């Protein structure tokens, strides 16, 4: 159990608030990037939502997942709420997985991101194109869906590093080191 002083608690609150502000700045910037230009772009908000989910509790994850989902819907012109539902669901699952079974490692994050973004892209292809039986619809899968998925997975590497950097400075530590315990105890005794 971590021993906290009042000053420590204040710093903790400040760091937590600042961390979440930075998360949402990153989300906002990614949304702007997604809505600019005419080229194919990675769905940046998927790896961001997942990266946040693996480092935070389920409540924060689900809200962030839903917000990212709504923003994807706006940027990609999808039914408002469609991606929000998908991403909120996956954020809860991922948050639980990392809390209970998986270690917070780069490889695990990449595997999870690759899987979730593939499912998201596949569902998008299925419900927005395949279901309507357009001629040559498989070309959309080959030329758009797969490329977007690959771009998303590649972009996840950079997003992981950015989130890792934010967490490195602003994420409160779960456990004290032996030295910290000794120092804190000594301070309390005095």
């Amino acid at each position, binding site marked *: 159990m971590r021993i906290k002083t009042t000053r420590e608690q204040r710093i903790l609150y400040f760091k937590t608030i600042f961390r979440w502000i930075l998360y949402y700045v990153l989300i906002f910037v990614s949304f702007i990037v997604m809505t600019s*230009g005419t080229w194919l772009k990675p*769905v940046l908000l998927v790896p961001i939502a997942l990266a946040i989910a693996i480092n935070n509790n389920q409540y924060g994850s689900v809200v962030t997942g839903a917000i990212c989902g709504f923003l994807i819907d706006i940027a990609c*012109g999808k039914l408002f709420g469609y991606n929000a539902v998908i991403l909120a669901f996956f954020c809860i699952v991922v948050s639980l997985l990392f809390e209970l079974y998986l270690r917070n490692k780069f490889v695990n994050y990449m595997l999870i991101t690759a899987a979730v973004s593939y499912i998201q892209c596949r569902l998008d292809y299925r419900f927005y*194109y395949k279901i309507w039986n357009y001629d040559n619809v498989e070309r*959309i899968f080959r030329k758009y869906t797969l490329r977007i998925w690959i771009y998303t997975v590649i972009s996840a590497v950079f997003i992981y590093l950015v989130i890792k950097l934010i967490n490195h400075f602003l994420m409160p530590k779960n456990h004290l080191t032996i030295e910290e315990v000794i120092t804190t105890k000594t301070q309390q005794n005095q």
Partner: protein
Amino acid sequence: MREFLKSTRFKILLAFLAFLVGIMIYAVTKGGYSVSGASFINTATKPFRKVSNKISMRFEHKIDKINNADKYYNENEELKKEIGILNSQLTEYEALKTEVEELRKFVSIKEEHEDYVLSVPCDVLGYVANDPFRSFTIDKGSADDIKPNCPVVTAEGLVGITIEVSEHVSTVRTILSPDLTIAAVCSSSNADYGIIEGSVKEAEKGYTKLSHLSLKNKLKPGDLMITTGTSGLFPKDYSIGKIKSIDYDTSGLSMCAEIEPCIDITRLTSVIVITDFSGKKEDD
């Protein structure tokens, strides 16, 4: 002095001066052309003069640069500032020029079709991310009297239709989308009818598809297809695009054509929405 005036030397010099005056008078009578001697000298010395002039100019230039370095430096700085100001003015001017040209085009729509009720020109906010059919959003919405299913056009031709309208933003589905079908007719013959409906393959090239053409059609590449206006969704006789190529449909029972839209749908910057026109189908 008297001795000199009486000497032969003086007479020779005087004669020479007279000769020179004579040459001068002769030169005057030539009416602008050089006398042959001068011409010869000019020709003979030309290359040397050229080289020497070049050298001296370069030398003078270098000296001038050293002497007036401060002056040139200040002049350069002032000119740089002036160029900066002029560039910003030029940018503003170009932007205004583009805007005026676009507005002029939109005015021409109103002049040609008096029955149209047009929205104010709308800027394209951006294309919908990763959409194969190039849907895009515009910066006007229901606050500007735009409703769903309003035709979206430019002066050159039809662009698409509004599908989702919020107060200040609307989403436009383009004619590249298979979800939008438009009855079209050839403008020259006014006889060959077909249905314009986007397709996955054609949309990749920025084209759309004309299908259900009669086997006996007389269409040829370059023919302009226009709206028929029968559906009440689009105004009559509005340009859609030109035929690129014609081929048999997969069934072989009818023909289809590749249509190049009148405007490059992948590079739009501003459009206009026709909010009302004669023959418009009223919403239920």
